[in-house]
């Protein structure tokens, strides 16, 4: 492998990992606050892609020429709002009534919600793959002639970094973020201190789902074929990325996503490309054997 090819594969891997990271952030946040894995997260990601698919032809004609970036931001922000609303609605209807139930009940409900969104999506949108509109023109930004990086890759990377920083800021520096950390630490004590648990949980779901919506649009821009089952595999991989980085840990999710993307890319580019997922996942199992709580996770002793 030449050094140019090596660097190109790193670029490919990091930009693939950025998607996993963006989806993983949503998983990790909900887990951090509620200690529960929202399996419908990958499907909110799918709804984000479809929201972009339907919004683009309605919004973009009003923003031509120099206004294009405004239009793109409008599509992105509207999609994030729609997905946030869907996330809050899912929590309100499906998860909140079960909050006092054993965690397993909620987990199985989450799988049910996931299947409902997937097959409901097939009913509403149709099951055939649709071509995602070219929201931003995907062209290679060639600098050296050997290495290429495309506009959508750069956009995905910038948006991911921006959202990661924004998220960290919200969690660490705002009152709601403090409430989120308090609920995560001890929900009963937080409630006794006057934290409105319902608001905090709704906010968490809304934020996580908005991230999934943004990821859906960016993913569809890079891989412009969308269908109602498209959230399944990225969802699973993002979940793995979240576990790898240490579930509940925000920078961990980002690092986990990038590691997964890079490993997958290097295996995919080698002659073992057939075993891409198998080798990538075997490596993850290896890492978890040595660090069971993930790279950034802290081991917590169970109090008996």
């Amino acid at each position, binding site marked *: 492998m030449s050094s140019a090819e090596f660097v190109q594969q790193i670029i490919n891997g990091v930009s*693939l990992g950025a998607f996993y990271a963006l989806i993983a952030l949503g998983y990790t946040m909900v887990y951090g606050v509620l200690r529960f894995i929202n399996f419908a997260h990958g499907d909110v990601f799918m709804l984000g892609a479809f929201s972009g698919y339907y919004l683009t032809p309605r919004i973009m004609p009003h923003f031509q020429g120099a206004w294009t970036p405004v239009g793109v931001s409008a599509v992105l922000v509207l999609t994030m709002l729609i997905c946030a609303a869907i996330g809050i609605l899912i929590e309100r209807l499906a998860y909140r009534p079960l909050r006092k139930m054993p965690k397993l009940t909620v987990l199985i409900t989450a799988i049910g919600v996931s299947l409902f969104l997937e097959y409901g999506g097939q009913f509403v949108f149709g099951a055939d*793959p649709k071509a995602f509109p070219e929201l931003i023109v995907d062209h*290679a930004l060639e600098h050296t002639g050997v290495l290429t990086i495309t506009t959508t890759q750069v956009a995905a990377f910038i948006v991911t970094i921006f959202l990661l920083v924004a998220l960290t800021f919200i969690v660490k520096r705002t009152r709601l973020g403090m409430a989120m950390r308090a609920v995560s630490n001890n929900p009963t004590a937080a409630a006794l201190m006057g934290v409105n648990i319902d608001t905090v949980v709704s906010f968490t779901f809304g934020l996580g789902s908005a991230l999934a919506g943004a990821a859906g649009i960016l993913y569809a821009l890079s891989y412009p*074929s969308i269908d109602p*089952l498209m959230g399944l*595999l990225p969802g699973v991989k993002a979940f793995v990325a979240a576990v790898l980085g240490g579930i509940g840990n925000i920078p961990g999710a980002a690092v986990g996503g990038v590691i997964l993307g890079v490993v997958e890319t290097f295996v*995919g580019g080698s002659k073992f490309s057939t075993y891409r997922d198998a080798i990538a996942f075997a490596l993850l199992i290896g890492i978890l054997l040595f660090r069971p709580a993930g790279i950034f996770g802290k081991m917590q002793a169970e109090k008996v």
Partner: protein
Amino acid sequence: MKSFSRSKLVLLAALSFVMAASTRGQDIVVGEFASLTGSEATFGINSSNGVELAKEEINSGGGLLGGRKIKLVVEDDQSKPGQPSSAVKKLVASDKAIAILGEIASSRSLEAAPICQEAKIPMISPGSTNPRVTDVGDYIFRVCFIDPFQGTVMAKFALDTLKVKKVAILTDVKNDYSVGLTKYFKDYFTAHGGAIVSERSFSGGGTDKDFRAQLTSIKAAQPEAIFVPGYYTEAGLIAKQARSLGIKVPLMGGDGWDSPKLSEIGGSAIEGCYFSTHFSPQDKNPKVQDFVKKYQEKFKAMPDGMAPLGYDAMMILASAIKTAGGTDAAKIRDALAATKDYDGVTGKITIDEKRNATKSAVVLQVHGKQNDYVTTVAP
């Protein structure tokens, strides 16, 4: 007690008489399974449209076997493994189909074929090109050419028309069709002076959407063309990512590319690439032009290669039922096996001793939604 059983007997006799009489004017049930939804939806929808068009023509022309109409029962297999077998079991057991039409994707035809073979119900695949499909047994037929031929066509085309010697291959390992085409392409290409400079693979059917890793290593091998024997969804994405990585050489594929979605997904990236298929709507043959006209009238769309295959499959079945003079499965099978020089929309069809159709292939060049005819390659 005695009188009761007698009346029951009379009733039974009357009932069986009514039933026997009704079979005479009864519809002939033909089952079809197709990928009407899912990642290869245009294959199922368009081949099914072709079947429907043929059925309507047969029925409006007075039906078969002295006025019996064809009743078509269509099952959707969602482009998913596991679905074809349950669909075909239902068609055979519950709908009592006398013959089965389907599928385009070889993996799914291979799943259904053993069920038809065991039930001794003739099955005709409109467009599965993997050789193993008809190897399942003597009740399994197809009306299209097979991959050894199709792979050879593209290898010949690369050597003789494109004049390239160094080719890279990107195979969908989850797909019998893609793996088969890769093998036959490679055999012919390397035996005639060409070299395969890089071979990479991916998982199709919506699993993989990022091919940059494979394409980056293919780019480093500097091929003069890339053979991508997958289906249209992946081919479109692969073309996009290849172009964005700065790969400028043409991509080539097989009939799995033949879908209006190819250029929708691939956009300008797939323009000018080549694939082999069964028919070109630009063909001047009056039979083809007549079909294109009727198809456009009914479905308001241009037929791709899968539509006329569905049409031909239904028509060949109808002609076999006519020859058999009834709906006896064994007789229909024999009539199908004896098909010779049937003048179909996709060319003259002769069923060989392995129940495959021998006929020519066309090579098309992607040009927007309409693909330009490049050349015909005879068997």
